[in-house]
């Protein structure tokens, strides 16, 4: 027998950008359309046999809570139907029916009667509830004197003692201390043994693995997997990893050229957005927004396509237009055709297109992230021009085209004296290379008796690069400068990491090739020639200089965490981080 049957369930929310629009729609009795539809759930069908413990997994916004709210009877489905046999006790939010001024006992009676129990039934269970909640005499105190954990314990105790046939638990077990959690799980097992049906929703995959007999994975309001909990949990992890990498790619990568200190900002377009003339359909917003790139907040102009933003500015000599373009990761799947970014300049009655680029992040991984550009405006110098930033697209669902113009500024080059000292020049060179990626928060430690001046990764010709292919041979070149005379051996090493762990680390100590006889002022270049047996993805190099007496006794002189970033591209001929270069043979017996 099925305890719960769900057929083609769907839930549509109408999204309004303002209450006024909702009001207009009501007034017109459906003749005017001012909303966008959002399907929180679509085509949900499943049966749950009695006695099943079903775990529902999914990322935030996947529709889990909407589904539970519908099954609990709080929300009404927009389409489809469901059928529940038996009494339901739902814990959608622990303690939501509690009143702080009243005693725990009053609240138990209140909560119990909300759950549909009579006074007599609560009388009979009261002692058990108090015992389970371990509140003791606190039960006679007003709830405002309780700690949050106590409130949760009380709420859970009442909910499990309602004696319902179906228990719906929404992320409730994650609270409470370890002992109470333990007791909750035991209680749930007892209920399982009694043949109750339990619906458990949460991010606690261990709970799903251990408690549930079946699991369901929701994504984007649809069931994408259903079956054995272990299998579904693995799928859930895969989903999260996908999102994680999409997030990283979307927010951490910065391509192209970024102006250094050699430029000064003359005009920040983002700050003057309110003075710009914006041409876009009224339903399409154009606004300023702050996003984080590598944990650094940066201002962008957020403009759904199609839109045109026009500024009037005067161009000084030696001016450059510096900007980035990018599409928010959440929109990638929604706009297969991509978004076209154009910049046109109206000058002396003529229109000149100075920039045009289509980003198709769904199809083209290289189009993800932020793309920086610096465009010289020399030919417009000493003129007042109109600059038009426009976005357009060819996809059908442009409302999702979350495209943005990043940190748009007008720059002017300032001549900068370069220090002629060898080390400083090298440092500048290193900055130039590293600026291909915006470095994150620089973590550097060590006593600096020897300093790392540069660390780069280059091809065999010695040209610094930041992108390589799997199995390409590269040189990691570390240049150090000593500030003291050393009698001990000096060890130089580097390790290669991805965001999860160290992939490989090597140093001169292990290879018995330590630097000897280092004098003050010495500049030494150390090359690590290595073959990049790495899979597709982003990696970092952490260079370090140290005095190593043994594997555990290390005096760090200088160490730059994740100093160099590089990308390995693989043409989809393997998976994972490491190319183990498998030689496959086969024969038919």
């Amino acid at each position, binding site marked *: 027998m099925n305890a719960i049957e769900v057929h083609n369930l769907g839930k549509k929310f109408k999204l309004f950008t303002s209450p006024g629009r909702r009001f207009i729609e009501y007034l017109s009795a459906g003749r005017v359309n001012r909303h966008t539809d959002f399907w929180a759930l679509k085509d949900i069908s499943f049966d749950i046999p009695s006695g099943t413990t079903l775990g529902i997994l999914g990322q935030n916004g996947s529709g889990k809570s909407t589904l539970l709210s519908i099954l609990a009877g709080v929300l009404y489905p927009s389409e489809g139907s469901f059928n529940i046999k038996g009494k339901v006790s*739902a814990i959608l939010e622990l303690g939501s*029916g509690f009143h702080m001024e009243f005693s725990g006992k*009053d609240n138990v009676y209140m909560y119990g009667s909300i759950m549909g129990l009579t006074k007599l039934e609560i009388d009979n269970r009261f002692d058990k509830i108090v015992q389970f909640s371990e509140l003791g005499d606190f039960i006679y105190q007003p709830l405002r004197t309780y700690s949050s954990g106590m409130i949760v314990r009380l709420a859970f105790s009442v909910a499990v003692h309602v004696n319902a046939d179906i228990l719906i638990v929404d992320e409730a077990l994650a609270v409470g201390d370890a002992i109470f959690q333990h007791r909750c799980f035991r209680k749930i097992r007892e209920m399982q043994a009694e043949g109750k049906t339990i619906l458990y929703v949460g991010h606690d995959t261990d709970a799903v693995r251990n408690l549930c007999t079946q699991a369901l994975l929701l994504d984007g309001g649809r069931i994408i997997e259903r079956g054995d909990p272990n299998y579904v949990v693995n799928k859930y992890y895969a989903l999260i990893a996908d999102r994680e990498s999409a997030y990283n790619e979307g927010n951490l990568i910065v391509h192209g050229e970024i102006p250094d200190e050699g430029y000064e900002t003359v005009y920040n377009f983002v700050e003057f957005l309110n003075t710009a003339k914006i041409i876009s359909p009224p339903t399409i917003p154009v606004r300023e927004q702050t996003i984080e790139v590598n944990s650094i907040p940066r201002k962008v102009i957020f403009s759904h396509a199609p839109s045109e933003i026009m500024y009037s500015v005067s161009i000084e000599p030696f001016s450059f237009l510096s900007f980035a373009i990018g599409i928010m990761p959440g929109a990638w799947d929604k706009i297969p055709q991509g978004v076209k970014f154009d910049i046109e300049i109206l000058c002396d009655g003529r229109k000149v297109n100075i920039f045009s680029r289509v980003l198709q992040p769904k199809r083209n991984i290289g189009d993800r992230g932020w793309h920086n550009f610096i465009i010289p405006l020399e030919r417009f110098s000493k003129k007042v021009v109109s600059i038009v930033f426009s976005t357009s697209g060819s996809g059908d669902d442009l409302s999702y085209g979350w495209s943005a113009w990043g940190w748009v500024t007008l720059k002017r080059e300032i001549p900068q004296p370069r220090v002629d000292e060898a080390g400083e020049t090298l440092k500048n060179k290193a900055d130039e290379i590293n600026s291909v990626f915006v470095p994150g928060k620089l973590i550097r430690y060590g006593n600096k008796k020897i300093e790392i001046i540069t660390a780069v990764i280059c091809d065999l010709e010695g040209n610094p690069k930041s992108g390589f292919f799997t199995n390409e041979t590269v040189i990691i070149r570390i240049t150090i400068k000593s500030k003291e005379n050393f009698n001990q051996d000096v060890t130089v090493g580097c390790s290669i990491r991805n965001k999860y762990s160290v992939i490989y680390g090597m140093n001169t100590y292990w290879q018995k090739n330590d630097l000897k006889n280092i004098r003050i002022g010495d500049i030494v270049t150390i090359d690590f020639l290595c073959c990049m047996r790495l899979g597709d993805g982003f990696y970092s190099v952490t260079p370090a200089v140290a005095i190593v007496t043994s594997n555990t006794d290390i005096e760090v002189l200088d160490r730059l965490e994740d100093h160099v970033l590089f990308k390995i591209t693989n043409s989809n001929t393997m998976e994972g981080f490491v190319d183990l270069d498998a030689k496959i043979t086969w024969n038919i017996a």
Partner: protein
Amino acid sequence: MTSVFEYRGLIWNFIKRDISSKYVGSLLGLYWSVINPIITLIIYIIVFGVFLKVRIPGSTSIWDFALYFAAGFLPWLAFQDSVMRGSRSIIDNKNYIKKIPFPSEIFPIFITLSEFVNLFIGLGIYLILFLILKGMPTIYILILPLAIILQLVFTLSLAFFLSSGAVYFRDIPTMLGPLFMIWFWATPIAYTIDLIPVNFQWIVQLNPAYYMIEIYRDALFYGKLPEINILVPFLIFSVVLFVISIWFFRKTKTGFGELL
């Protein structure tokens, strides 16, 4: 309504909790429910009875006017308070409606019932006033329960309409303040119907609150049976409105979960 009846224990718990929570922590507690209407009553009697010298027809006594006014004003006050609070009953209890599955009809019902405590306090004040000024009330005081039930039905209907409407238009509870002020002055409570020019009297005839108040005044002040052309139209009107309001509430409550 059968499912709501099953929840009568819960409604009763809610009412108890509502009333006690209102007075938990306030120093004079329940006394404010007595003091506030008395102060308002005195102000109106001074302004209308003493300064403006309003008298009821066939009497020159200010005390007759005072009792006439109190017989209409005290039920009105309870009516106004329960409709105003009832209109917020759904949006104020969104914690329950979004999280716990049970019939949301309970909220306008229990708020209205709990606010009816004020009516009983008001009627108590009136009867004490009456005993002091006039002595024992007549046998027609027995009509009072009918007046109360009719008021309850009328108030509940408005609470159903407005509490559900407020979910869709959040401005409704705010709009009610000025609307009730207009309604109060459009109803002959602080003055008598014969003070209204003849060509405006039809407005009063269309005002359900006038009928409601008139029944109270017959029972409490005039001591006579309500006229048929007052009682019957109001009875039919209240019952029909009540049925429509429940239908409306049922129709619209499917949206509560997502709009709150």
